[in-house]
């Protein structure tokens, strides 16, 4: 599959946005750990802003950033949101509630518990009727999600916003599904190979290969890449930040997606 990468966004520890991340990804010695700060969701109406949980704020922060970078109208973009855990905080809270027979589940928590909550808030915030889908592919959520977004872009011949995002889960469920940090990244994949772009991509999927994900050589960024399913994107982000031609692999189940980049 051949696509133009129109823009990139990122939010994670020590990586507050794409522009600030570029020097760090070029020279990992500059990386310092730090909290992931979630900006307010200015695009949402006040009631929705109050209801949207931190996972939606995380996902929408990179979705807004990447659309601004590309200068594209969010309402005109088909979107693919991919996350392993969804809103773990809401799930943990509902699971606690359910242990008591007579306590009512919070209606707001229940509607935020759907895996497509972030996708829903995204379309509500922009009054968009464009398609938005929500995927859950455990540790393969970045590779499988990117593959899915690319397949949509080439088949439908329209640009696709892809967002990968995950957060730590609190409570007992978080002791068995351990996600140490918050991380999100977003990309706009455009089938138009002649328009403006950060890079041209050649994507080759092979189901019969092992599910290899390339990781950064730097030990700290390597640990970060393993600390969140969305951070499996780090080797790809580093390649883009370096503005070098090359390729990295993103694991899927089954197989692997080879992501070849040619900077524009």
């Amino acid at each position, binding site marked *: 599959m051949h696509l133009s990468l129109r823009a990139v966004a990122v939010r994670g520890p020590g990586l507050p946005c794409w522009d600030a991340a570029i020097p760090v990804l070029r020279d990992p010695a500059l990386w310092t750990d730090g909290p992931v700060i979630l900006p307010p969701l200015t695009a949402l109406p006040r009631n929705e802003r109050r209801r949207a949980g931190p996972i939606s704020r995380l996902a929408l922060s990179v979705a807004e950033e990447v659309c601004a970078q590309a200068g594209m109208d969010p309402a005109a973009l088909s979107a693919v949101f991919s996350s392993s855990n969804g809103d773990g905080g809401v799930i943990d809270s*509902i699971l606690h509630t359910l242990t008591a027979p007579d306590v009512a589940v919070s*209606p707001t928590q229940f509607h935020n*518990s759907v895996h*497509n909550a972030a996708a829903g808030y995204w*379309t509500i915030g922009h009054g968009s009727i464009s398609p938005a*889908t929500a995927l859950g592919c455990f540790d393969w959520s970045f590779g499988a999600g990117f593959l899915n977004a690319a397949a949509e872009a080439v088949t439908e011949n329209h640009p696709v916003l892809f967002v990968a995002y995950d957060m730590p889960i609190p*409570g007992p*469920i978080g002791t068995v599904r351990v996600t140490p940090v918050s991380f999100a990244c977003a990309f706009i994949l455009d089938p138009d190979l002649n328009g403006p772009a950060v890079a041209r991509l050649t994507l080759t999927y092979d*189901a*019969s290969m092992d599910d290899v994900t390339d990781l950064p050589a730097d030990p700290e960024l390597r640990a970060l890449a393993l600390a969140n399913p969305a951070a499996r994107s780090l080797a790809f982000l580093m390649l883009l930040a370096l503005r070098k031609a090359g390729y990295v692999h993103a694991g899927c189940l089954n197989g692997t997606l080879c992501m070849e980049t040619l900077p524009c």
Partner: protein
Amino acid sequence: MIPLVVTAGTVRSAIGAGLAETRESLLDRRSGLTPCDFAGVKTGYMGRVAGIEQHSLPSELLSFDCRNNRLADMTLQQDGFIDAVADARAFYGASRIAVITGTSTSGILSSEEAYARRNIASGTMPADFQEEYTQDLFSLPRYVAAALGLTGPLLTVSNACASSSRAFIDAWHWIAAGLCDAVVVGGADSLCGMTLRGFASLSLIASGPTRPCDAMRDGISVGEGAGFVLLERACARSISPMARMMGFGVSSDGYHMSSPDPAGRGAMAAMTQALNRASLTPRDIGYINLHGTGTLTNDAMEDGAVFKVFGDGTPCSSTKGWTGHTLGASGIIEVLFAIQTLETGVLPGCLNVQTVDPAFRSQIITANENTAPRAILSNAFGFGGTNCSLVIGAA
């Protein structure tokens, strides 16, 4: 759109195990709803599948054991589905067949049971609990692929109640993009405290059996079920298809998390897009299987949107009165109902309806009618404002 066909399929819900039982229940207008008594919830009705508690997964896949994967496994074992997939696997190769499933809650009942047994002092889960293979959304396609011996790409779509309908669109993208040659498309959702008590918190559970489109409708009955089809390019193999997948439409509401846009802007866009992709006009659609959940707002919105696209000339009904609302599985289950309707020629009129809402303007049918439709539109809408319409054609 590239021509796609369904070459095998199977379904399980409260109205039956497999296609033959399902067909009989639809023809006999036999509902599967019973008074709810699940996870401590004793209000309203439910569409429960019998025998899940007694079902065992194969020993080599026991780590996947949870209500949802048992339901999926029971379903896979019907209607010669495993053999049909084995034939396709021999033809295409195991790595060329993908599995794309829709589910809203996967195996979360296992987590509910584990929370009841958690160590309150240490805040830890029981040692035998395996989140990755039960509650996790990806557990379902991993189980299905393992049970069917498939090694192609896997995906879980979790778009609330439109999950397994949306899975068809992703399957089309994957086949068209050459990532695979065929896809096992389907889904499963099973009863759990989270959905029973969650919908109750929104006052969306009907006091009696759900009665979509009735003037006095008062909500949903939660059901469980699963269904799977084998989707592939037309004429790729010399076998007779069950049905053709002719068109897909997908959209968002961009309106509210848990209430549909009363103007039906997104629903109309999905239906219109599905017709356009199928190169059909509204008059070509012989029956519409509504999302028809039985809530005041969904059914009113859907009626308005259907009337604006189709007028009052196309018979419509909801089959939720048979199965209850099977949430993320409702799309695939209703695709298989549509295939049964294409084969029998008999439209299943809404169950439990005394008086159709007098404000409705589309042609709601409340008795079975033998009209032999050649193409059916199937709607699914979900929380988050996610809409999906599929056009299924006779083989």
